[in-house]
């Protein structure tokens, strides 16, 4: 139910593909992490025996009626607050009528004209299309997020000529989150999806498990010449991995452009992405799609949400990534970009704050987490929760860099050592490996004097105004100190002696 809004932003030339502007909107179905179904008391746990979690209400047995789950509404409110939406004080459940074997009532209870969550936006940073330069802040506007019930599953395997219907999933609460067609590239689309995934898992309203279908994305893709009306869109259904998402959208964009270039018009369609072929294919158009005969569900009076309830939910919510990032900027003097990076997950944020507070060096700690630490984690395909080094250890390492005990190079060696033997202490490793920087000025002066004496030519050149000559001398001195000299100190000493 995307409401195509004319996106007025002028096309960014760097994003044009063969002269076409790409326009993408998203519809995401997030399964809400309630214990019971949205309109029945049956459990929602994944993977149970077929139809053992489908009660009389879920099966639409004659005489059954829906009774709304408060937990689902609370989660919808939390989401709305997380993305700055308006929480409708009064929203309406409607019936969407169509026949399908996994839809027990012959209609889906959803929200149509008046959804519970209205407006809002998802903000994130996007690496520049040019590939270099700073990341840009992007904001994708939300049209709405509404509550609805999930359908069951059709199993086509092992039944000769027949399909098996498992209704365990029928009635699982969903929040369908609909964006404006604000995205202009597959990269931006994936970045949006990742940010949305981060938000719903961060606030804990959805487990985010894409394999099990807890977080399903549909992408509405169209292309147009810059400034033209929105093109006809095709909807790519059930993108259940970020990797496929990018592939599917890129393929779809190319396909649409080629169609248009070959003079064929795009037909509105629902398509599926086949990971094996890497292609999108139009589904057999679901019949009745044209006419769902929506009308307010007479079994369900209006959903009324008092302001007090919204405030109670707000008060009980964990600090949101956006808010936490702002705090990191204010309290720790981090840049927007760093603060966002360090609030990718609650785990990373927690790790950062623990280390930063332990050593009072937030910027250094941040650089090390985003640099050396995450590089090693990526290699191990692990996340921060699996990091062998504790925040306290990282704090200690950063302290040693800060007080000049070791150089950055030496610190990397310490990190490597800790990584393989986490029980070790930073100072012990520095000792054992003899990584301490030479801070004994007397010893350093001897080396400096020796080097100056041994290199009159460079000295002369420097005095003659060739700054480069200094570097040669510094190099000699560092060598003479087996790299343990503190470069700043060496510079200072040299300049003083050559003055």
């Amino acid at each position, binding site marked *: 139910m995307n409401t195509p809004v004319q996106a007025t932003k002028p096309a960014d030339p760097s994003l044009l593909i063969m002269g076409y502007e790409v326009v993408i909107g998203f519809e995401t179905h997030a399964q809400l992490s309630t214990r019971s179904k949205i309109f029945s008391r049956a459990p929602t746990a994944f993977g149970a025996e077929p139809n053992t979690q489908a009660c*009389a209400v879920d*099966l*639409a*047995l*004659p*005489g*059954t*009626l*829906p*009774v*709304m789950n408060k937990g689902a509404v609370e989660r919808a409110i939390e989401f709305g607050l997380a993305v700055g939406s308006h929480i409708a004080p009064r929203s309406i459940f409607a*019936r969407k*009528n169509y*026949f399908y*074997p996994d839809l*027990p*009532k*012959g*209609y889906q209870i959803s929200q149509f004209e008046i959804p519970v969550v209205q407006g809002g936006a998802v903000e994130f940073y996007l690496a520049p299309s040019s590939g270099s330069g700073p990341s840009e802040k992007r904001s994708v506007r939300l049209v709405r997020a509404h509550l609805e019930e999930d359908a069951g599953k059709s199993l086509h395997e092992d039944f000769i000529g027949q*399909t098996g*219907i498992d*209704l365990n999933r029928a009635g699982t609460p969903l929040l369908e989150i609909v964006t404006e067609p604000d995205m202009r590239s597959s990269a931006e689309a994936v970045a949006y999806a990742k940010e949305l995934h981060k938000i719903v898992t961060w606030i804990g309203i959805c487990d985010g498990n894409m394999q099990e279908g807890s977080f399903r994305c549909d992408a509405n893709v169209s292309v147009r010449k810059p400034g033209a009306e929105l093109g006809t869109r095709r909807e790519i259904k059930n993108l259940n991995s970020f990797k496929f998402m990018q592939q599917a959208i890129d393929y779809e964009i190319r396909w649409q452009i080629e169609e248009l270039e070959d003079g064929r018009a795009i037909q509105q369609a629902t398509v599926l992405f086949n990971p094996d072929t890497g292609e999108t294919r139009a589904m057999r158009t679901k*019949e009745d799609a*044209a*006419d769902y*005969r*929506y*009308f307010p569900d*007479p*079994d*369900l*009076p209006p959903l009324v949400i008092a302001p007090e309830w919204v405030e109670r939910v707000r008060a009980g919510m964990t600090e949101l990534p956006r808010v936490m990032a702002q705090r990191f900027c204010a309290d720790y003097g981090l840049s927007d970009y760093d603060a966002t990076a360090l609030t990718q997950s609650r785990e990373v944020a927690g790790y950062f704050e623990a280390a930063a507070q332990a050593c009072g060096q937030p910027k250094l700690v941040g650089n090390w987490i985003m640099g050396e630490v995450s590089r090693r984690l990526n290699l191990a395909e692990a996340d921060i929760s699996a990091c062998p080094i504790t925040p306290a250890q990282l704090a200690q390492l950063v302290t040693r860099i800060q007080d000049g005990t070791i150089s950055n190079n030496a610190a990397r060696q310490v990190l490597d050592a800790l990584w393989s033997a986490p029980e070790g202490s930073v100072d012990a490793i520095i000792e054992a490996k003899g990584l301490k920087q030479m801070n004994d000025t007397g010893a350093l002066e001897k080396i400096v004097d020796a080097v100056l004496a041994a290199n009159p030519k460079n000295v002369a050149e420097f005095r003659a105004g060739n700054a480069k000559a200094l570097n040669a001398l510094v190099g000699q001195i560092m060598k003479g100190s087996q790299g343990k000299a503190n470069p700043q100190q060496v510079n200072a000493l040299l300049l003083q002696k050559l003055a």
Partner: protein
Amino acid sequence: MTQLSSDLHDLTVAQLATLLSERKVSAVEAAQHFLTRAAQHTELGVFLDVQPDITLAQARAADARLAAGNAGPLTGVPLAHKDIFVTRDFTSTAGSKMLQGYHSPFDATVVARLGTGVAGSNPGAGMVTLGKLNCDEFAMGSANENSAYGPVKNPWDTTCTPGGSSGGSAAAVAARLTPAATGTDTGGSIRQPASFCGVTGIKPTYGRASRYGMVAFASSLDQAGPLARSAEDCALLLSAMCGPDPDRDSTSLDVPAEDFTRSLTADLAGLRIGIPTEFFGEGLAPDVRAAVDAALKEFEQLGARLVPISLPRTELSIPVYYIIAPAEASSNLSRFDGVKFGFRADQYTDLNDMYLQTRDQGFGDEVKRRIMIGTYVLSHGYYDAYYLQAQKIRRMIADDFQQAFQVCDVIAGPVAPTVAWKLGGHSDPLADYLADIFTLPASLAGLPGMSVPVGFGAGHLPVGMQLIGNYLQEARLLNVAHRFQQATDWHTAKPQGI
């Protein structure tokens, strides 16, 4: 005992309850007596399912409660349920081939409250179920001729319709095959058959009785209620049926259960009875009018004052109702697709054909007609002109009643324009729709309404008077009806040959 039990079936619910509580009759005796009568009067076609073993087991349980001294006022009294209510122990067909032999895994809330109770919340009245009663398919009809299991015959003239859709309920009570029965009323389905069969029936305020376990026809209109032989009996049953069902029905009202017998005998002096001009137009048959007028005079005798009022949109209620009800029905009946339960066609080529064949063979003509109407008025491009427009006029109709209740306490008029017509007498479905004109307005407004026998018309067929009260005024309606029945004996009249 035996000479007494020979005419047990002539006793009212109140009288039977007294004998049972005084242990002068056992629940088993009473049940046995009515089971025998049911077996003797199958020609009326009222019962769709009878399970003597289950009935007698319930009766023994009731006797145990009576013996143990933890019985309620109705414990042991037999009753029968309209087949629209799903039951665990009896089949539940809703009068449709679609649900032939259907066994519900649970009891409707109303059935549980009247019977063995709702687990955890309500002990149950301990009444004994005699069986399930015939009705129009999915409660769609005014003559009980739309049942897949054959028509019900009017005990007063077996060539006539008992009315519908609760025709089996009304006929069973009139024929003394049960002291009382449950029914459901969507557009008049309790009041009109009660009127045609000369029994007393009440439809409470929408939301008073839980809809959980009622096979849904039109969700915003369906409401359960009792049919019996007196207002007092209806009051006793209604008290047991009503009450919030927060765990199962989101539209059940948050008003506590009431004792509707509390004010039965209150004086009617000063009662203002509103007489809607539109209910007494040329559409009203003279014989019905005569009986209703006589009853109004009787009320004046009892100290009531007649106040002329207007319900200007009475005629509009026909199109409004026949758009809203089918719209909701078209959606409610989509679950009958041959996948999870009920009928599935034997022959089909693929999934879509299975749907087409199953629903074509499983539904009767009237049901299909209403599904088509409902599908149309909800479909793209017509929703605003039909469904939405109807919902707007529905509010105007409800507001008209509130206007009227400024100047009167209850509203009185005919239930139907005529007495019962011949079976097969209405070849044109539209004729049935038009005959609902006087019951539809209160249904659309969700107001309580009842039918009280006030005499006989052509062919010595019963005439019912309709009483409509404001929201939650059931006790007042029952009081008005009870005082009338204390002063008259129309409600005690008994069909010949029964």
